[in-house]
């Protein structure tokens, strides 16, 4: 029993070493309100992606003629599957260079996952349902997460001072240079990074409003 506890404590401390320190990222809008569903990721200042290659499959579902989630963040090289949970067929595509792809006319899980080899924003559409819009943000890092409803996200970094933190969301209109924060001068082990956005946010996509129908049959 005692050996087990010691073993557990030991593995926990190794885990702490391995996962390093928490960087608390906060995103607030012009009015100081938290912004949820913002992609947050850390890139090494030396430009190298030293993260292990991704193995797990990520999922971009289609439910009620919407992409779910609206924004998915993955590491470069991640296989992403696009199951169709609707009863109608979808025809998912992206023209975002160089991650173009197309999955014609399918229901359920008809296609093998798509592997995104290049970093960047992949905007998704459905050629049957023009109003459908979704995003995959492909980043050269395994250190990523999304802000929660309180606008908070925690990144666990081994040595924060070696990283820059970046954020992205289709709702954010601020220039890219304001969405990057270097942690090089971080002296404390645990850091807090606050992004106060200067520009008003775009509304959330397909916010159902009013009692009328918004798409032709």
């Amino acid at each position: 029993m005692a050996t087990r506890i010691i073993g557990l404590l030991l593995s926990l401390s190794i885990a702490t070493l391995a996962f390093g320190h928490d960087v608390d990222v906060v995103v607030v809008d012009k009015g100081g309100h938290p912004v949820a569903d913002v992609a947050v990721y850390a890139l090494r200042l030396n430009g190298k992606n030293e993260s292990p290659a991704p193995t797990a499959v990520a999922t971009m579902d289609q439910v009620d003629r919407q992409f779910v989630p609206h924004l998915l963040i993955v590491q470069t090289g991640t296989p992403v599957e696009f199951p169709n949970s609707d009863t109608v067929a979808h025809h998912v595509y992206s023209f975002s260079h160089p991650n173009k792809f197309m999955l014609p006319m399918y229901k359920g899980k008809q296609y093998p996952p798509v592997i995104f080899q290049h970093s960047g924003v992949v905007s998704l559409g459905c050629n049957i349902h023009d109003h459908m819009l979704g995003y995959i943000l492909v980043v050269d890092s395994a250190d990523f997460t999304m802000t929660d409803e309180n606008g908070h996200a925690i990144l666990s970094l081994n040595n924060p001072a070696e990283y820059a933190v970046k954020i992205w969301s289709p709702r954010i209109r601020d220039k890219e240079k304001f969405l990057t924060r270097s942690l090089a001068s971080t002296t404390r082990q645990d850091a807090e990074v606050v992004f106060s956005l200067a520009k008003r946010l775009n509304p959330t996509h397909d916010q159902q409003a009013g009692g009328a129908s918004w798409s032709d049959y």
Partner: protein
Amino acid sequence: MVRLLILSVAMPLAFAARMAAATDAPNRYQLNAGVDLSYVATSGYDSWTQGFVGKLLYDGNTDGVKISQAFIDASFQLTDTLKAHAVIDAYDDDLGAIAGFTQAYVEWRPVPRSKNRYRLKVGAFYPHLSLENVSPGWDSPYTINYSAINTWVAEELRTVGAELSVSRRPEMFGGTQTFSLQGAVFVGNDPTGSLLAWKGWSAHNRQTRFGDKLPLPPLPVLEPGELLDEQNPYVQPFREIDGRAGYYVGGEWQLNQQLLIRAMHYDNRADPTAFEDGQYAWNTKFNHVAAQIALPGEWSLLFQWMTGSTVMGQVVDGAHIVDTEFDSKYLMLTRTFDRHRVSLRNDKFEMTQNDDTEDDNNPENGYVWTLAYFYDWSDKLSFGAESMVIKTHRCGWEYYDIDETRREKQLQLSVRLRFGR
């Protein structure tokens, strides 16, 4: 030309039927069907559908329980980017066969290679105009009977031709805005305007099928020996008379699901002196604007305004033999809560006349109030109740020794069945 176009649609449809046997066919077709069973009680003049002047679809002679709507709306993906779409409506009346096509077209939807999306429709279809008719079968989710504008569109407007639409993908604007432009070239639609000028505005949900003959009121000017006695007692609005193509151009801007603004200019470019097989060509032009606004709560406001002119015949004393201007607008407030929907609509309509032709007095003005309620029992079954009042002042009604001002009323209770996959 019309036959060629219909053939060009019919052939892919036949191909579609064959393809339906293919293994992935279930992914490729979409089928919606609807049947409405209604109890109708009206008070008003005998209906225009009976060859008189009443603005409603029904009258005292036809009150009671009836099948008030029946349609099949089917589409099939011929290829990944080519879709065939057909809508068949059935009516138990004397205006045509029991069933017929209201729309039949092929749509090409190439996968976008850039932020521009192109869509091309070829065949017979409605111009992109109505804000109300957004359900399968071009039906309205808001009211049983349509606004005056869209009732006229259902009666006399159909594009038999090609429409190209270009839209910007919404991520250009952070996923919030969509722009699109449409342009169409069409044949047919030459007699369009006959029914509007001679009968006036209406409010109902009957969609003219290809082949239907819509009765005209017994105007003195159409009687034997009178000026326009060569006109058949009916109009076939989708026919080509003069061999000249018409066009429309339009645009739309949508801000999220908050605000939509739509505009169109339409001109059938018909030669108003052309005549064939008992049908005159009418030069019908209009401008149309529409807006849909989401209000706080589950409320929405819909607005459409159409203003234009329709003329027929030689120019005599500075005006065509029949020279009318038309104008209609409506404002509708609609709200859903849970499985309920309530809609209140007010239409205003007007027709003015520039000609002095005797026995052909067409000016009118009036309004419609429509209050509708729907309850969705399930996806397949809903119940509707609608009360409608149309007040019209039309001088031409003096020809029939009836009041020139009349308030026509209709109560309709409906059981609506919808099937879809």
